């Protein structure tokens, strides 16, 4: 398959004004992916499927990623006046990255035998604007997997023909794969508790877990 950079260039030429970016992967597989603006995702997906050199006709996998709001620190060198003289000092700057959810699609070409191309869409935030565009109109195989991402992550796919929960029951509340999910406190007696179960068990001991 051609490189992601050349796909990006051809995509920008084919669909003027399209907002696509390449996300590098710092992990060992080093497999970069393509982030597309959610309001243009449908057009980009159609192009990826129909382009004669790509023909990504098979969507193998749809999943979600939860990125909660994080604060990370970065060390920067700045010039500042200290005791009357200007010198370079090192300062720590705090960055706040707002939380969002991601829908990740793994695309393959059955006809040309290549792939995967990883396509991502990002939601605005993790609450009321957790929306991305459904790609079920392009790849029918995304239907159930988008329902699963909605069920477990709470990503709302606009344009999905039948967006319901698929693994959990309809009455279930909350989205259990989110990182801030708090499970219900339904602890029961454990004969040999250990690790997280032990901390859970101690909260239910009559002494309140003060002693081992």
């Amino acid at each position: 398959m051609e490189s992601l950079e050349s796909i990006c260039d051809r995509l920008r030429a084919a669909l003027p004004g399209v907002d696509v970016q390449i996300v590098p992967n710092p992990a060992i597989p080093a497999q970069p992916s393509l982030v597309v603006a959610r309001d243009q995702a449908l057009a980009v997906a159609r192009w990826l499927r129909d382009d004669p050199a790509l023909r990504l006709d098979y969507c193998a996998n749809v999943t979600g990623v939860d990125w909660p709001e994080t604060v990370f620190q970065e060390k920067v060198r700045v010039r500042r006046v200290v005791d009357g003289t200007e010198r370079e000092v090192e300062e720590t700057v705090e960055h706040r990255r707002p939380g969002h959810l991601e829908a990740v699609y793994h695309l393959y070409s059955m006809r040309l035998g290549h792939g995967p191309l990883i396509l991502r869409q990002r939601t605005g935030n993790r609450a009321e604007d957790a929306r991305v565009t459904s790609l079920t109109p392009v790849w029918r195989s995304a239907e159930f997997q988008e329902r699963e991402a909605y069920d477990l992550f709470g990503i709302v796919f606009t344009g999905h023909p039948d967006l319901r929960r698929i693994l959990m029951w309809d009455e279930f509340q909350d989205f259990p794969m989110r990182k801030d999910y708090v499970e219900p406190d339904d602890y029961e007696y454990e004969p040999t508790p250990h690790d997280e179960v032990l901390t859970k068990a101690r909260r239910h001991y009559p002494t309140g877990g003060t002693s081992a």
Partner: protein
Amino acid sequence: MDEGLRSELSKQGVFTTTLQDLYNWSRRNSMWPLNFGLACCAIEMIAASMARFDIARFGAEVFRPSPRQADLMIVAGTVTKKMAPLVVRLYNQMPEPKYVIAMGACAISGGPFKQGYNVLKGIDRYLPVDIHIPGCPPKPEALLHGLIQLQQKVAAQSLTGEDRPRSLREDAPAEFPVPTYGPYDLQPPHNPEVWRPPVVVRDAAG
């Protein structure tokens, strides 16, 4: 009937039995299981029914696809909270007398998924389980052993008296309440008629 007299009569070619023995003998040797599996334990259950292990040797080879024709429910695998009401409903649809085998760690206690948000912590919360078969998954031999244990249990049941089985008691419930789906868990989380949480007595050291 006196055991010595019975043996004496059988030497003379006279076969004697009681209605209870005949009834239990026929029941225990034609235990028809309900044909359903929930997870990987079902693969072992299928293996037990195939030629190598051959559950037909014990008269339990007729896996019925309808609960109306089944005597035995083998809960083979993880019971998720979404599946549990359907398992209880299937059990309710089976005719009496009926028995339940909880096969594998998941059906007994939730197994490795016990601390999860979506798995029932054992089917004995809603159904009266007769035989628990430990294992993850239990080997087909273990299932056969469980079946033999159940057959011995059936053989020992008396049709009258105080210790008669549940199916012959008028006061015992014929149906078990089917739980409904709640916002986090099933409602009720367990059937208090069948199961109560274990009371653990601990000293001050916790």
